[in-house]
């Protein structure tokens, strides 16, 4: 009864739980749990032999948070910033700390510009964007898309139509825009004749 001092009784005793659930209580003693944060200083855990690691060469001006004193000794080199998105990213890192919403909103804006320009660039490449393959929508047929949703009270079904707009909307807008552009060009050419 919650409104008194007593804690509600357990439905099953510890002995019953131990009999029913493999390993019940194996880590009952907190000392068996690898706790975090660890108060004990262990300056060279595992195979580290350095106090400060050797520095990875910087092959281009690597963007970094202005909360860091210097470029960390090791870093990823996955996608160097380039184009308009790259310029926005560099600005976000140079000017705004992680504590500023502007930092993250600029990075998100750059992400969208990067995705759009990447798609446009792909049409000039040997591997143009393929919305059917890239969205993996064939999985709907291969992995029972309808049956996975029908007759279920899934909370995500409320927003899944929105996802469709987000995924397909830009392609639809691009298709309509291209059609209108081609039509306009054709009319201009016809008038000129």
């Amino acid at each position: 009864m919650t409104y008194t001092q007593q804690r509600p009784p357990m439905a099953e005793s510890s002995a019953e739980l131990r009999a029913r659930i493999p390993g019940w209580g194996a880590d009952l003693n907190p000392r068996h749990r690898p706790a975090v944060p660890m108060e004990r200083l262990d300056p060279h855990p595992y195979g580290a032999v350095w106090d400060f690691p050797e520095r990875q060469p910087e092959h281009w001006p690597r963007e970094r948070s202005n909360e860091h004193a210097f470029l960390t000794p090791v870093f990823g080199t996955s996608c160097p910033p380039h184009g308009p998105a790259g310029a926005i990213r560099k600005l976000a890192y140079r000017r705004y700390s992680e504590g500023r919403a502007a930092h993250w909103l600029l990075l998100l804006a750059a992400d969208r510009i990067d995705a759009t320009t990447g798609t446009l660039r792909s049409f000039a490449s040997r591997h143009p964007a393929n919305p059917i393959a890239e969205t993996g929508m064939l999985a709907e047929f291969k992995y029972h898309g309808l049956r996975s949703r029908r007759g279920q009270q899934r909370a995500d079904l409320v927003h899944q139509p929105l996802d469709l707009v987000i995924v397909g909307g830009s392609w639809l807008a691009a298709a309509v825009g291209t059609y209108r552009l081609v039509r306009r060009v054709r009319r201009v050419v016809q008038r000129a004749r």
Partner: protein
Amino acid sequence: MRAMVYRGPYRIRVEDKPRPVLEHPNDAIVKVTRAAICGSDLHLYHGMMPDTRVGMTFGHEFIGVVDEVGPSVRTLQAGDRVMVPFNIFCGTCYFCARGLYANCHNVNPNATAVGGIYGYSHTCGGYDGGQAEYVRVPFADVGPELIPEWMDDEDAVLLTDAVATGYFGAQLGDIVEGDVVVVFGAGPVGLSAAASAWLMGAGRVIVIDHLDYRLAKARSFAHAETYNFTEHADIVVLLKKLTDHLGADVAIDAVGAEADGNLLQHITSAKLKLQGGSPIALNWAIDSVRKGGAVSVMGAYGPMFSAVKFGDAMNKGLTLRMNQCPVKRQWPRLFEHVRNGYLKPRDLVTHRIPLEHIAEGYHLFSAKLDGCIKPLIVPSAA
């Protein structure tokens, strides 16, 4: 080599990319034999994580065989079968020295608030991930561990994040004998947290989700009591009633940024990116735990602010604990639990997908089709 490549929100493909090279004397190049898609990869896939660049390869859960090592690597050699924790860490900075390997200060120039993670945007350091044939592994003497002879590959790959993170979530709750533990989210991490809560002596473990097949798994994998929140008008009231109006002793948020259940929250966070994530699960955790209880958070959230009910947390005197899991610290104990059969990571695997079909794998996992709980990726060269 063949690698998964991000093209924009909801769009990925497999491309030829240059094989990674040794960029630091303590790097190794690992040939990936198994990778997984993690629930937090979906935040990248949906375009939620800032600075996710076109061309990046995702994947922070992977195992493989060492292909090449840098000149200063002493503990690994070519041919070793290794499992790689999702955290990249130096082992000796202020934070690593205190066991906070997820918070290493020497591997992520892009941010100080988060450490380095394989394939997890430039916000986490700009490292390519393991959903590829090869991957660069920095600090090869520190992070990777030889896979024990007796351990199955599928157990090993799930210990690189999902199961270790679930165990960590239960650990952050500081569970004592007889505690009522409620876990929000029955994905691989939530299921692992629920199973781990018993190991720490929970008296009752309740799992909340909206997908019946995941709740069925919570009953079989984690021996949990389950409730589908869509079947109840107010899940917080239900949990209060279930706990004699006291509330749970420990609430674990294993959902993170894209919680369903409130369309407004979902639109402002997942769709409009105005929040660091939809805090609906976290708010349910704060509301449903008892006064003086503990809320453990290892569901992944983005760096932007979120509308979290902090006032209630303060007024209830809650202990909030959270972090990315320092995976390697969990391994010795988890190896014992797997060997004893107390945790069975590979039971979470529902789909095995060739790398070439990874776009379908992401859609399958994202749309939660076909009873998918955990999809593994098998590189063509594996």
